């Protein structure tokens, strides 16, 4: 398969970049730090599965940042320089190039997540904790997919514009919108409408639904559903099943739309 050649090549180049090494080291350090302090501050029982509820908030902020930073220059910097033309002169389709870039980079991030989780698991289990393998594996799997979602958003930013600077602006725009602004804006809207007397209580269901579909919120709910200490309550769309569908949509739709735009564009 053509994309395996491209994924291997791009993965190797990605790991070779100094900035990526620092980002991945930061991820591993944060997760390990979490695992180190969790037995001190967490509530009994101390298990690897309940650790998920302890770090999910950190990961929901950190992984989007790392994902967009790893992804945003995937295609656009080679497009700007002209190196992309060398790849596309070879018998690779544009789809292969994108898939290779995405899997190369998402793979590097996934490997770092797995390494961090294994280290964290050891810190949690030793000396007093307990290993709950199936739920912990589900947590690692969800985290890998969450990393892929944000790498995908980064790569998608790389595909829809023609310069690296613009790709960075788009990628960071999406990052700030979802990670920082989304819920805050909804809260502010609710408070504002309440104090103005337009609204009594909560925002309309459609708005609440939109707020809940933000990738980090979806990820957090899914992790909560595998955390023995967590529980999901509320409207029908806050259940794990709808969240899982939303998760899959986030993993595929941004890349799909960006691919369609890129596939039909003139390159030089």
């Amino acid at each position, binding site marked *: 398969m053509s994309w395996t050649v491209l994924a291997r090549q791009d993965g190797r180049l990605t790991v070779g970049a100094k900035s990526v090494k620092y980002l991945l080291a930061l991820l591993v350090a944060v997760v390990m730090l979490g695992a180190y302090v969790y037995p001190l501050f967490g509530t009994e029982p101390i298990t690897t599965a309940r650790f998920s509820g302890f770090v999910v908030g950190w990961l929901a902020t950190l992984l989007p940042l790392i994902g967009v930073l790893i992804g945003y220059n995937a295609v656009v910097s080679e497009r700007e320089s002209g*190196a992309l*033309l*060398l790849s*596309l*002169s*070879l018998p690779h389709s544009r789809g292969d190039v994108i898939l290779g870039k995405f899997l190369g980079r998402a793979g590097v991030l996934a490997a770092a997540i797995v390494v961090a989780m294994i280290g964290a698991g050891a810190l949690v289990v030793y000396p007093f904790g307990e290993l709950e393998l199936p739920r912990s594996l589900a947590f690692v799997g969800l985290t890998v997919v969450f990393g892929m979602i944000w790498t995908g958003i980064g790569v998608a930013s790389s595909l829809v514009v023609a310069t690296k600077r613009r790709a960075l602006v788009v990628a960071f725009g999406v990052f700030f919108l979802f990670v920082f602004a989304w819920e805050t804006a909804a809260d502010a809207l609710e408070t504002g409408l309440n104090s103005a007397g337009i609204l009594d209580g909560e925002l309309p269901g459609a708005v609440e639904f939109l707020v809940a579909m933000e990738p980090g919120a979806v990820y957090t709910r899914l992790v909560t559903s595998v955390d023995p200490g967590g529980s999901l309550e509320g409207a029908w769309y806050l259940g794990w099943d709808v969240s899982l569908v939303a998760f899959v949509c986030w993993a595929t739709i941004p890349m799909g739309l960006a691919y369609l735009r890129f596939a*039909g564009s*003139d390159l*030089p």
Partner: protein
Amino acid sequence: MVAIDANEVSKRYGTLQAVDRVDLTVEEGETFGFLGPNGAGKSTFINMLLDFVKPSHGSVSLFGNDCQGEGVAARSRIGVLPEGYSTFDRLTGRQHVEYAIRSKAADDDPIDVLDRVGIREAADRKASGYSKGMAQRLVLGMALVGEPDLLLLDEPTTGLDPNGAAEIREILREENERGATVFFSSHILEQVEAVCDRVAILQDGELVALDTIEGLRETMGGGTKLVITLDRLEDGTLETIWAVEGVDTAVATEESTVEITCTNDAKMDVIVALHEAGLDVLNFRTEEASLEDMFVEYTGAGR
């Protein structure tokens, strides 16, 4: 079999007609020169063959595979040196060739390839530190990987000194002898003249000539070039010559030397016209017209 088939292909950018209804067929085994001044649309045409650019109208195919619909199949048997490329930042020359070998599922030895294009000693240096000429050799090497049936090269000798350009031409000749079709663009005419079976001349996006070099000479009315040395050159001397029927181009090359391409019958008329204008012809000789002269005629660059 047909290597390249362009069927009334056009490309429009806003109000600019970059390529205008080009109809072109290149047979397998040919060495084909694609000529034209800068900005004539040569690269746009080649970029449509590579599917970097989508045609506005018409279609192009390589070995019967549509370049847009079946791009991967179309590119599976070719080696490419595109315009406006750059090398990969963090890869060495050898890694570039290895990438091409893996991508084409070929089994060449990277060092042999680099040796052939003359940059073996730079194999393990990062390509980002290469000169333009070395990068050009590297990408040509990538193009040669896997014994392609067609070499598609956009200005292959850019950035090379005359010796380097001659080496590249020698490689192209070897590849053609092996059985590969060679298609390359250039605005340097003597190179095309030296190696090509047929040439096409593109001007403002339109194909203005498509023939063998001999054929081009014939359509030029015998293809005679007159080199006349006069006692002096006055304002209006060139106009006097242009006014003679059968004259295609007249260019003042040195202080009082004029190069004229014309039909055989017009030669004496030119001498007579100059004499009547009061100028003394000190010397004159005739030459076979070179492609350069034809190029000047077709693209109007001399006037």
